[in-house]
């Protein structure tokens, strides 16, 4: 699909920066409500039939041109990230669909307690909204993206029937689930935005190819280029691709007036709009707000609190892998949409840390990726190479915790003083260290994960204390709240400082929870869109 600019001299009602998970949802919702919507995206449309999973060298591409890490991928539409002072490297994809192109589409929801961490556990802050506030938009998003799953999970509030039955957990899933059962611990089939049956326009059921991180050839895995964007464009939304926004512009009163950007040919351009919606996620959004400093906003846009870029949260990820005596053929089926366990999700002070984690079962991939390392354990070179590879290749399953990562102001996104992107704009610099609470949480998860894998029959356990290239979830850097001195946007995603600037991505998270965040990000985006529709008629021409 290609798009062309419609009358670029007009003043749009809403200009969205970023065409990923949240930007697409807002574009579809607001265009349906009759707003004139334009979105500017630095990447491009993807052709699912050209995804590398159909190439014999797909494993090589996974560590080069299709790496999850923009510092390794280094495409013109990517921006480099300075990670010298970070224990975690962020991963992302820049293009129409954003990181929903390169995700596992594992889609659990936050728990009610995640919204009340300060009240319940005495740390961090409460959200200005509750689980119940978001629930209608979670449900709506599950239907648009297409959720496979089954209701009745005792670890979560009751929820509506999923649009599709669960993705079958397979014999390997049954091995791990059986171990949880014998230990008396919780497990449940994962909610997944992967089709277990045909669902959505031109989207087949999953064919269990097993490599769903690198785009989905089958179009069974939901990405917003397949779900929200076709709707939005049918409703008149304009999507400009290959264009990099370099600043949000403001008028003498400090209100947003549009953006300056570089088009696909590198020309300086300006688009005017009655409002701007930031949807570039937890690194791209604070970067652009900081790049948009001006006389009226000397510390960057919407930064009177000084919190833009602060409180960066990833989800701590490490874990365990088990090597089993029998073949489990771990390349068959989705990589990480099998089962989860939330036995240790809620706070128990006796464990020595606050909050908790979700266990997520994972499979392996091809022999090259197994050789490069399961749980960070590269197969040794030399005389033992073949024996170790053969022991692990067909026989390894993983159990990784996604741990709650509480906000700390010193974990941050700032502008790098030297590093720039391909357009010469300052790149983001990440400063991040693992807290004592996170370390204790991960240690607990490794102990319990080892117990589960041994119960399931594993004869060798590979431990990764903390993975570095796992910054999938970019959260907290423009948090929401009721207090303008302690937050960047209000409960509706509207900037405290600028009433026609909204933020709808992972930046607004107050705490991170212990689940993959995309359904929550999209529910927040849809809720903000409905707020604009119902309360901000002044933004419509």
């Amino acid at each position, binding site marked *: 699909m290609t798009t062309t600019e419609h009358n670029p001299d007009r003043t749009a009602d809403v200009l969205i920066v970023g065409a990923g998970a949240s930007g697409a949802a807002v574009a579809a919702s607001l265009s349906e409500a009759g707003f004139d919507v334009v979105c500017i995206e630095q990447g491009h449309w993807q052709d699912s039939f050209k995804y590398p*999973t159909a190439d014999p060298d797909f494993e090589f591409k996974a560590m080069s041109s299709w790496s999850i890490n923009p510092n390794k991928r280094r495409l013109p539409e990517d921006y480099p990230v300075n990670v010298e002072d970070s224990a975690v490297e962020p991963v992302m994809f820049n293009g129409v669909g954003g990181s929903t192109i390169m995700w596992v589409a594992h889609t659990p929801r936050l728990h009610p*307690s995640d919204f009340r961490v300060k009240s*319940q556990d005495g740390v961090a802050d409460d959200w200005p909204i509750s*689980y119940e506030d978001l629930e209608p938009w979670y449900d709506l998003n599950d239907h648009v993206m297409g959720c496979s799953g089954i209701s009745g999970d005792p670890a979560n509030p009751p929820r509506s029937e999923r649009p599709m039955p669960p993705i*079958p957990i397979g014999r390997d899933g049954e091995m791990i689930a059986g171990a949880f059962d014998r230990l008396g611990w919780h497990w449940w089939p994962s909610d997944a935005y992967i089709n277990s049956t045909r669902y959505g326009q031109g989207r087949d059921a999953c*064919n269990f190819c097993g490599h769903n991180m690198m785009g989905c050839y089958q179009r069974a895995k939901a990405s917003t280029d397949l779900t929200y964007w076709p709707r939005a464009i049918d409703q008149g939304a304009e999507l400009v691709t290959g264009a990099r926004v370099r600043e949000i512009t403001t008028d003498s009163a400090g209100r947003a007036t549009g953006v300056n950007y570089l088009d696909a040919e590198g020309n300086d351009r300006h688009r005017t709009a009655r409002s701007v919606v930031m949807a570039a996620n937890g690194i791209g959004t604070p970067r652009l707000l900081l790049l948009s400093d001006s006389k009226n906003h000397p510390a960057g846009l919407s930064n009177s609190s000084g919190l833009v870029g602060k409180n960066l949260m990833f989800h701590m990820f490490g874990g365990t892998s088990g090597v089993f005596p029998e073949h489990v053929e771990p390349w068959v089926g989705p990589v990480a949409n099998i089962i989860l366990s939330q036995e240790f999700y809620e706070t128990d002070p006796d464990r020595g840390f606050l909050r908790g984690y979700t266990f997520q079962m994972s499979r392996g991939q091809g022999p090259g990726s197994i050789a490069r390392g399961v749980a960070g354990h590269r197969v040794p070179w030399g005389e033992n190479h*073949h024996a170790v590879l053969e022991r692990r290749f067909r026989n390894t399953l993983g159990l990784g915790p996604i741990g709650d990562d509480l906000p700390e102001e010193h974990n941050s996104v700032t502008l790098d003083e030297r590093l720039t992107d391909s357009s010469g704009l300052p790149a983001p610099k990440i400063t991040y260290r693992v807290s004592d609470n996170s370390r204790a949480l991960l240690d607990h998860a490794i102990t319990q994960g080892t117990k589960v894998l041994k119960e399931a029959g594993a004869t060798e356990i590979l431990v990764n204390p903390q993975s570095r290239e796992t910054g999938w979830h970019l959260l907290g850097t423009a948090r929401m709240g009721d207090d303008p001195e302690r937050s960047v946007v209000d409960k509706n995603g509207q900037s405290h400082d600028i009433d026609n600037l909204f933020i709808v991505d992972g930046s607004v998270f107050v705490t991170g929870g212990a689940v993959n965040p995309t359904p929550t990000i999209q529910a927040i985006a849809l809720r903000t869109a409905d707020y604009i529709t119902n309360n901000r008629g002044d933004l419509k021409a």
Partner: protein
Amino acid sequence: MVIKPDTYLLTAALNRVIPPVGDLPGAGGMDLAEEVIKRSAADFRFQDALTRVLGALPSPNDFLALDDDGQDDALRTAESSHADAFGLWLDVVYTVYYMHPEVHQRLGWHGRSPQPEGNVMPPWDGSVLGVIRKRDPFWRKA
């Protein structure tokens, strides 16, 4: 740019890193050095790693003059002194090796790309939930 003598050095090193197994020669004997060089040239990180690792080994003639244990010692020295580069170089070597059809055949792996053929999705079996369905809700109310 990797010059010709380094191909000999690389070939010899590959034979020690992934030695012969079964009917297969070592990775060097499978003529994978050229592929490693070609793949490395496409990415500066890989190229840099290759250059550093080969540069940390003895000269081609000296390396080839060593016996197997001596070559392994030389590789271990390079690994110790250039750990990051050596690891990245290994990633390239391993990935190239495990793309080879004869290696797939030996492993008994189908060896094809994941798509378009894929695999068969098994049926959903709700009986697996028999135990966990008996558990009372335990999520924390807020």
